[in-house]
């Protein structure tokens, strides 16, 4: 075991701890602005996990979209809706909380069991199988080929979807404004 593997594992455990703690604090924070800050930390840590997996392309998109764009959107939503603060809005402490926690524990245990069972069927789950390690240029080339040649129609579909949503939302807001006026 060389020092690079140890460094990778240390970074992985650090990012994992940050992700889990920040995600929990996002849910448990009473003030919604603190939730947003912890969520930004989660999104950036997920980007670092992508970098550990040699996916710099995805990491940059994660930083740009989830690290910057979406928090700005959420911050504007908070500003538009914060003139009436309701301190009682926190978590639903009721029978729903207990039932949800029990369901979540069962969910985790079931999927963990499935993972352990599948590890006896497939041999690559516990071995770092990477038969073909691409360098940075080959990785970028391969992703670009897949994105702009192989999955070209999917990419165009996503772009068209974003365009339709932007136009649709704008017209919806205009329609609503006229009706209110």
């Amino acid at each position: 075991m060389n020092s690079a593997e140890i460094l990778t594992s240390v970074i992985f455990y650090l990012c994992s701890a940050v992700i889990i703690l920040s995600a929990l604090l996002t849910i448990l924070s009473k003030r919604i602005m603190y939730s947003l800050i912890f969520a930004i930390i989660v999104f950036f840590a997920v980007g670092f996990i992508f970098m550990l997996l040699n996916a710099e392309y995805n990491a940059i998109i994660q930083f740009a979209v989830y690290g910057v764009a979406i928090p700005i959107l959420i911050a504007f939503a908070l500003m538009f809706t914060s003139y009436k603060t309701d301190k009682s809005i926190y978590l639903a402490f009721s029978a729903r909380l207990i039932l949800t926690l029990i369901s979540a524990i069962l969910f985790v245990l079931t999927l963990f069991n499935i993972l352990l069972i599948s590890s006896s069927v497939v041999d690559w789950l516990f071995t770092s199988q990477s038969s073909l390690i691409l360098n940075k240029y080959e990785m970028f080339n391969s992703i670009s080929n897949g994105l702009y040649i192989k999955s070209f129609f999917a990419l165009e579909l996503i772009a068209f979807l974003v365009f339709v949503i932007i136009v649709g939302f704008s017209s919806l807001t205009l329609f609503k404004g006229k009706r209110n006026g």
Partner: protein
Amino acid sequence: MANLVFNITLFHYLILALILFTIGLLGVILSKNIIKALISAEFLISAVNINFVAFAFFVDSAKLTGFIFSIFTIAIGAVELAIAFAIFYLLFKEKKTVNINDYKELKG
């Protein structure tokens, strides 16, 4: 044991994604604030993205289909959040509250 701890495999990434997905699911179900529920929904998408990228790296390192699909998922997640906030803001103009329990007519 030390090999399992220091040799990061696909199993580690799947467990991390499983924990993040569960926390997001708890947030969506338990949060009474609509904005917090939507942030938790983004955790679900991030967990799925970790799975996509981890599988692409460990199993499909030649074609990298998981990497490409992860980019599409990020775009869909951003669009979904924008739409959700748009609908929420239009509803907020009527109700003036961010409490999920006040939007009971959406149950159908």
